[in-house]
């Protein structure tokens, strides 16, 4: 397999993520007892594991590797790592613990594995390196706070191209520039995929490669699907974009919602669009409840047709932000005051503080804004200090102006 044969032999022979590679090498070089662990975050095929092995080899570390999504229980982890934790290598060799796919552990939080990892990174005598595929950091936020993070982004197509070209040159395979570009486009920044495609296509003509690629089932990611949907010229094209979008109906509803609330639509258009999304959401929930899964086949058409009519072409662009921009900016900037309020109220409302801020708070402020005295008393009873109270008062003013 070319993927194995041409696996980079040194850090310099990899491509992409240059800064992360250099910084990771320096991190391991300078590692001393008490240093933060390293957390490599990035999509598959971006070079996290390869970099770890090459760097360890360069600095003469022996790697003890554990796939954290397979070995999840505290007992199993202790069994594997226990002897390493309290000592250095038996013959004085340098050891390094590598926990791959740590984000996989968070799917099952009940077996003590995560707590073990969190304890482990604080007390280890040897360097610990963790890797996660997640691009959504929320799941591993605790580990991020305790670690030195190295991000691995997808490799730019041009760098994939020169890497593949280099392999083809070594193999003596001649492919046209156009064929190589077709393969690179197919790989979407995943080096492994690009090399595998290059191997399977070697010896074929550009026409053959092009016909194979175009005959494969075309699927869109959520982003591609919705970008095409929002910019579609016709209802049919909008439907087609959603139909070939490789995602669950619930995710499509969520994406439609987050994109719409982050758009600059006029109020009446926004209401109309949200109504349509609400209806689609209701239907997905009903299908789940009644388990009439066959009805899901109508879902894309329903969402596409109803939402397409409600949105002017190009007025909405893809966004994953789950709350309106203005609210988000204020939450970032006045996070302490809002966090305190959210935390205090969450105890009474039996929900998360985030939910309190995004869902309940606006209504509460509208209700309380009618009587400033009672509002002040209410928030004082929650234990807010003067500065937090000032922020809340400002919020109330903003919201009551909007309501008027």
């Amino acid at each position, binding site marked *: 397999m070319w993927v194995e044969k041409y696996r980079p032999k040194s*850090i310099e022979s990899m491509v992409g993520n240059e800064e992360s590679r250099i910084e990771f090498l320096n991190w391991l070089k300078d590692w001393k007892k008490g240093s933060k662990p390293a957390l490599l975050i990035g999509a598959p095929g971006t070079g996290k594991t390869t970099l770890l092995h090459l760097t360890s080899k360069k600095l003469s570390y022996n790697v003890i590797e554990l796939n954290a999504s397979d070995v999840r229980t505290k007992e199993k982890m202790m069994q594997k790592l226990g002897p390493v934790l309290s000592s250095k290598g038996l013959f004085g060799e340098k050891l390094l613990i590598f926990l791959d796919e740590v984000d996989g552990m968070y799917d099952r939080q009940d077996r003590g594995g995560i707590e073990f990892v969190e304890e482990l990174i604080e007390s280890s005598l040897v360097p610990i390196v963790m890797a996660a595929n997640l691009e959504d950091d929320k799941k591993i936020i605790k580990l991020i706070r305790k670690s030195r993070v190295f991000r691995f982004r*997808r*490799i*730019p*197509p041009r760098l994939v191209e*020169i*890497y593949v*070209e280099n392999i083809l040159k070594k193999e003596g395979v001649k492919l046209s520039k156009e064929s190589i*570009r077709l393969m690179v486009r197919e790989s979407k920044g995943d080096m492994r995929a690009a090399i595998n495609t290059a191997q399977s296509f070697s010896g074929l003509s550009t026409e053959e490669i092009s016909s194979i690629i175009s005959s494969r089932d075309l699927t869109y990611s959520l982003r591609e699907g919705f970008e095409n949907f929002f910019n579609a010229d016709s209802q049919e094209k909008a439907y087609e974009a959603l139909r070939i979008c490789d995602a669950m109906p619930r995710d499509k509803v969520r994406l439609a919602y987050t994109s719409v609330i982050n758009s600059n639509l006029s109020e009446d258009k926004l209401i109309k669009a949200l109504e349509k999304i609400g209806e689609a959401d209701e239907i997905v929930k009903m299908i789940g409840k009644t388990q009439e899964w066959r009805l899901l086949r109508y879902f894309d058409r329903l969402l596409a047709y109803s939402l397409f009519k409600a949105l002017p072409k190009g007025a909405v662009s893809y966004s994953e932000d789950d709350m309106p921009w203005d609210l988000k900016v204020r939450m970032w900037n006045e996070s302490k005051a809002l966090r305190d309020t959210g935390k205090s109220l969450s105890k009474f409302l039996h929900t998360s503080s985030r939910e309190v801020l995004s869902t309940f708070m606006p209504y509460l402020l509208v209700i309380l804004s009618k009587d400033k005295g009672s509002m002040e008393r209410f928030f004082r009873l929650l234990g807010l200090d003067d500065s937090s109270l000032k922020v809340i008062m400002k919020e109330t003013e903003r919201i009551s102006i909007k309501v008027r």
Partner: protein
Amino acid sequence: MIVAIGEWFKLPRLGREFFISLMKAGLMYDKSKGFKAEANTDLIKISSILKRALGEDFEFVPKCFTCNSIIDCYSCAYYLICDVKSLTPNCLCDNCMSNEDAFAIYSNALMKKMS
């Protein structure tokens, strides 16, 4: 507005809230030089804040890893499939790409930066 990753750039006054948001997102600020987004900052977040604040499209473009020139993404064969904001911030310019030993040149440039 198009800005190269790692280069200083100036912005008009955006107000306190946007400024704080940009700082929190990791944008660097220097009173005399302006703003700068380093390779490891959250480029998606920063460009989305700036898009809102400026009311126009804002794009970060990569620089050539080997010769440090700014890359004209619009002329690239991969422009439609390449999302520079979620990709590694370095790329190769047309000149360096057209060299027969592009890979060797790229590796040498990295070796120089590592030493």
